[in-house]
């Protein structure tokens, strides 16, 4: 009797190909780096602490929930890193995390586009993030880049809002493996 029921069970178990596969972002395998202009020259840094979860079906992403700890900023200049943690920049004591959550994800030719909201320092703004999800050496890897206006999020207030000396545009490049 039970033997005959087993094939029936398969009707209720979702087929893997159409299921949402949710995976954690592997913070140790990847990078989130940024570039901003100081006195007209590119200045680069990165964030060492980030994570989150990305869900997908086959290779189409359905949901993105990622965060980053601004206190892990690393520009190679300790005095600059310290300043970036202060209230004029990331105010890390008050806002230890910044986060992006998607509301929908669109497939585009060869890449995907996440619509969602980025929250930094208590300010949320809609943001579209183009990215790719690819398999590399048996791992899923998300990668992409975007440009932000730091002033919309209050990054660099007061004297630092002078964009001739510190550019408003911040280019962000990310790449992370999923577990």
């Amino acid at each position, binding site marked *: 009797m039970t033997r005959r029921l087993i094939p029936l069970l398969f009707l209720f178990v979702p087929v893997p190909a159409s299921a949402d596969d949710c995976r954690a972002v592997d913070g140790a395998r990847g990078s989130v780096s940024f570039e901003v202009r*100081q006195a*007209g*020259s590119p200045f680069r840094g990165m964030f060492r602490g980030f994570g989150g979860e990305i869900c997908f079906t086959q290779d189409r992403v359905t949901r993105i929930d990622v965060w980053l700890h601004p206190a892990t900023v690393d520009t*190679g200049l300790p005095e600059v890193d310290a*300043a970036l943690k202060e209230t004029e920049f990331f105010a890390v004591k008050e806002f230890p995390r910044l986060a992006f959550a998607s509301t929908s994800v669109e497939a585009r030719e060869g890449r995907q586009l996440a619509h969602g909201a980025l929250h930094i320092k208590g300010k949320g703004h809609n943001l579209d993030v183009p990215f790719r999800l690819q398999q590399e050496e048996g791992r899923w890897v998300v990668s992409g880049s975007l440009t932000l206006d730091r002033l919309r999020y209050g990054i660099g207030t007061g*004297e630092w809002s002078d964009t001739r*000396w510190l550019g408003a545009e911040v280019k962000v490049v990310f790449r992370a493996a999923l577990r």
Partner: protein
Amino acid sequence: MRFRNSAEGYGIIAQAFHWIVAALVFVQIGMGLYAADLPVSLARLQWLSRHKSLGLGILALVLLRFAWRSLNPPPALPDSMPRWERRAAVATHRLFYVLLILAPLAGWFHASAAGLSVNWFGLMQVPDLVSKDRELAELFKLTHRVLVGLLALLLVGHIGAALHHAFLRRDGVMHRMLPWRPRRNV
């Protein structure tokens, strides 16, 4: 007015290079000392940026000056000066060129290694000499300081000697670098 150097003194090109570089080096030392002491702030960014741009300008001027000097050697020092003094003067002048080339180069290496590249007075991007490297940056920072310190010491000796020639010996040596003639028998 002579453009080229003569047996009596420096021509106006050499004089212009001398006094322009001298004035800029003083401004440069002042800006460096002021900026290096500022905490991370917009003022530090502004003053260090100006310091870096002006420093590269000085480097370019010194290279031009050196080229001009190679084509147009300086007048010989008077025989009235003891031999050791003439040697010391010649050595000092040569060392100025060495330091005025190496000190800004060290600054440029430091800025490159620190990841704080230079955009020359906001007009053009200056290439980096090395890629970003924290330890190298510290090393070049120290090198820049040491070279600038030597330059400052040399300046003290040079200015002291020039004033000595001008006011105590009154042997006309100082006037070789001035556009007017000495007042005789004062």
